[in-house]
């Protein structure tokens, strides 16, 4: 009963987080678009801003509604169909029976690394993707541990929030990148056209530039902090399904020893995965996942 209550708390918290995030990210997006428009087409601001506001609202809604498909497409996952994947489908169906929820759609990603992620809107519209490397290198108990971990993300309603974050953050980073890259071009063009038109313009551009640099970092930090807590949660509730902590512990050990951290996936998608798909020098600050040793230790203490 105790465990069940924490599920509900977790689900409520995820719902609240989603709304908060949608508002913050929408405002950041609007700030970026405003700067963007100010640099490139200052004379059309009055048309550009309402249109972009509408577009942002549509985008926010669409990333809630179709975020899972965007993520699936971004990782190049394909449906796990046919006899070849009957084993993976069996394992997943068993765990969804244990969780008492509908079976998610199962995808595979072609990669020698051991990894997996879950995405979707709610348990009725959810997907789990597993790498071909995981299928080859993990035994049944280990694979069950990994799939149960992903299943728990679905059950705790992490997926909705995480998918949402991923898609929104993706756009923020793209826009920021464009602004950082092109602002000096647009800026110099404008300066030559109407020379010295006041300090307001300069302030906007500087503000926008700062936003363009800081926004992706800030959003990423929030994203990372949140996703670490969720990983521990999903480890624990995954074990509740398999009743076998050693399965996931041993899978994580294999991940630690054999993964190179060289999957070709976008940074924005990486917090969705069970193990960070790309390692970088910034790992200590931006680790989307708690240290793997610590997760193994906790599992072995259960």
């Amino acid at each position: 009963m105790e465990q069940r209550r924490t599920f509900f708390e977790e689900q409520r918290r995820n719902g609240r987080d989603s709304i908060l995030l949608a508002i913050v990210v929408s405002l950041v997006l609007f700030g970026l678009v405003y700067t963007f428009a100010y640099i490139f087409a200052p004379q059309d601001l009055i048309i550009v801003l309402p249109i972009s506001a509408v577009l942002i609202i549509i985008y926010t809604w669409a990333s809630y509604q179709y975020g899972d498909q965007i993520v699936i497409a971004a990782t190049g996952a394909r449906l796990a169909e046919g006899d070849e994947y009957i084993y993976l489908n069996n394992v997943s169906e068993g765990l969804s029976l244990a969780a008492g929820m509908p079976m998610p759609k199962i995808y595979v990603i072609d990669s020698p690394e051991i990894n997996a992620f879950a995405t979707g809107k709610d348990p009725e519209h959810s997907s789990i993707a597993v790498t071909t490397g995981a299928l080859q290198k993990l035994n049944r108990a280990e694979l069950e541990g990994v799939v149960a971990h992903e299943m728990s993300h679905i059950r705790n309603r992490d997926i909705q929030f995480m998918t949402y974050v991923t898609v929104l953050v993706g756009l923020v980073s793209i826009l920021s990148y464009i602004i950082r890259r092109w602002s000096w071009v647009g800026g110099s063009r404008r300066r030559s056209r109407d020379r010295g038109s006041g300090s307001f313009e300069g302030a906007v551009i500087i503000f926008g530039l700062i936003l363009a640099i800081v926004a992706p970092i800030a959003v990423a930090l929030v994203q990372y902090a949140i996703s670490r807590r969720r990983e521990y949660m999903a480890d624990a509730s995954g074990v509740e399904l398999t009743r076998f902590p050693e399965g996931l512990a041993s899978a994580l050990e294999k991940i630690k020893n054999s993964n190179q951290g060289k999957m070709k996936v976008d940074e924005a998608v990486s917090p969705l995965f069970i193990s960070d798909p790309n390692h970088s020098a910034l790992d200590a600050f931006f680790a989307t996942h708690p240290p793997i040793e610590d997760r193994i230790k906790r599992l072995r203490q259960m």
Partner: protein
Amino acid sequence: MGRKMDIFTIGLIGAVVVVALILVGLYFSYYNRIRVYENQIDEAWSQIDVQLKKRYDLIPNLVETVKGYATHEREIFEKVAMARAGMISGTPQERMEASNMLTSTLRQLFAVAEAYPQLKANENFKLLQEQLQGIEDKIAYARQYFNTSVLNFNNLITTVPGVWFAGGRGKREFIAIPEGERQAPKVQF
């Protein structure tokens, strides 16, 4: 005096109404929770049922495939057929017992198959083996969900205040976990 009585009476009526409303609210809430758990148990059983039927349907395929290679193992085929027959009718408890018996006879069958390299290499056999292993796991997982649902239901109707609203409902039975299943069996030659 009369006026004071009125106030007292109104207060009393008010209090009675409030208590009655609380009781009605509690009744609705607990009635619904009990029904939700009951439905969950039924749903859990029907999931097990689906797997038992799938298993029932797969066995003849498996036996045919094995017979093609291992013609002399009559005894084991008979045992499998007997266990399979028990799975389709009877109380849930009886059917689960038949299914458990089938689990152990299938293990013997697969152990026998180890002695036939050609059979082991047969694609169809490998597929059937995976399917049956999958179903066995699914039955175990569905049973786990069933037992969790039963536990939640029993907790609800045997503790205060759920017990007041249980309407004489009795505790539900768990599905027993067979002894051998707790540890994975090792087959060695």
